[in-house]
């Protein structure tokens, strides 16, 4: 049976993982390659790297990181952040990324999603949707949640599927950083509206939240950062907990 996936997310800036990662016996808490290796050993099903480098000068650093990680970690790698054109997708794939996540640029230029999926296949195009509840619906936000787009998140998800997205990474901006759990209503509404897999993100504070994301939110995969980074919970511990609650996982 297909397993639900657990995906740790690493925010990278200027070639270093930020927000800190707190593994026991980790020599260098900011080295993305070492952290990726540790998550791989712990049983992560995939890894997501989010390049939040502000300056374009240091953009190539992410390519070197992905190259290094891909040489020794043989699980799917997704990279997002600053992807603006098909050439960016190509560079990341050539460096060893398996999937590229497109966020703001999908809103600015939806054709990019179509062009990139036509060129490289839907399987490697993830569209990241940052959403916030506004009135009686959920709206898509860009630029890290700062800019409203007026787009309805459910309609947007369907449009991205029709343009060739192979997967959606859905982040609730209302819940991100709150540790109060995923926005289950939003996750379920989007997961039920499309046929492609949904990765739930934003708000995980404990292991029950992961279970709820799958059970109540109908998510196909769950993404979390801080609960894993700070050693509150291990990946293996999270998987065992999910299994105890009847969720199929890769152990």
């Amino acid at each position: 049976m297909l397993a639900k996936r657990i995906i740790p997310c690493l925010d990278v800036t200027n070639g270093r993982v930020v927000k800190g990662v707190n593994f026991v016996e980790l020599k260098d808490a900011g080295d993305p390659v070492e952290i990726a290796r540790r998550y791989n050993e712990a049983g992560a099903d995939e890894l997501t790297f989010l390049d939040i480098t502000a300056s374009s000068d240091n953009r190539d650093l992410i390519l070197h990181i992905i190259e290094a990680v891909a040489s020794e970690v043989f699980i799917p790698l997704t990279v997002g952040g600053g992807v603006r054109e098909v050439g960016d997708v190509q560079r990341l794939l050539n460096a060893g990324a398996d999937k590229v996540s497109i966020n703001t640029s999908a809103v600015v230029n939806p054709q990019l999603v179509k062009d990139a999926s036509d060129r490289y296949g839907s399987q490697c195009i993830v569209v990241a949707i940052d959403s916030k509840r506004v009135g009686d619906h959920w709206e898509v936000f860009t630029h890290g949640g700062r800019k409203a787009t007026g787009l309805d998140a459910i309609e947007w998800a369907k449009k991205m599927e029709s343009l060739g997205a192979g997967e959606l990474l859905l982040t609730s901006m209302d819940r991100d950083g709150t540790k109060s759990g995923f926005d289950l209503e939003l996750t379920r509404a989007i997961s039920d509206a499309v046929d492609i897999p949904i990765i739930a993100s934003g708000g995980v504070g404990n292991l029950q939240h992961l279970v709820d994301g799958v059970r109540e939110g109908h998510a196909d995969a769950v993404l979390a950062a801080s609960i894993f980074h700070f050693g509150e919970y291990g990946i293996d511990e999270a998987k065992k907990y999910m299994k105890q609650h009847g969720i199929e996982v890769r152990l």
Partner: protein
Amino acid sequence: MKADIAVIDYGMGNLRSVSKAIEHVAPAASVVVTSDPGVIAEAGRVVFPGQGAAPDCMREIDARGLRQVIIDAAHSKPFLGICMGMQVLFEHSEEGDTACLGILPGTVQRFPHEAMVDATGDKLKVPHMGWNNVHQAMPHPLWVGIEEGARFYFVHSYFVQPTSPEVIAGFSHYPFPFTCAVATGNIFAVQFHPEKSQNDGLTLLGNFVTWNPGASETACDMSGAACA
């Protein structure tokens, strides 16, 4: 210099993961990613990966003049098809109504929308993406060291339906059983991605780089070659 292992590059998707994983399990081997028919013809072993859509895949194979060298390799040397590189070995794909290489009898079909519900009635997504159990349908040198039911990483919307059940080397469930590995002679082909399936995937690739199909009992029996 002749390559030990040629990874066929026909412009379909990212081959770096495949070549990296093979280099990892066979550090002493020369691994080349190539679209040169001459290099492929000379190589000791061939890996035929691929992502994307079947019509594009067949078009790119022909645009590079690779059809015959792929067919020849599949008949003559250890040959590993991965994902789209498995699907196009068959005769026809429903994806874009595409005539494929016809090396193996059978067809390629999409996961039918109406069948995609699990035992509890929940919708199953397509593409089939993630880690699923692979059940071994026959003993094979490429399965050595891999547990029955081990999980491999999949991402696909179409699956193969071989005409001859005897080539089925492995199957998975989503939600019905579908063929995810086939083996015949010197061909082994898988729907999942061994290069992304962590330790079990590396074990399979390691088995491939040392596999000697001619040494198997079946091959001996068929060819009548000296097996002593």
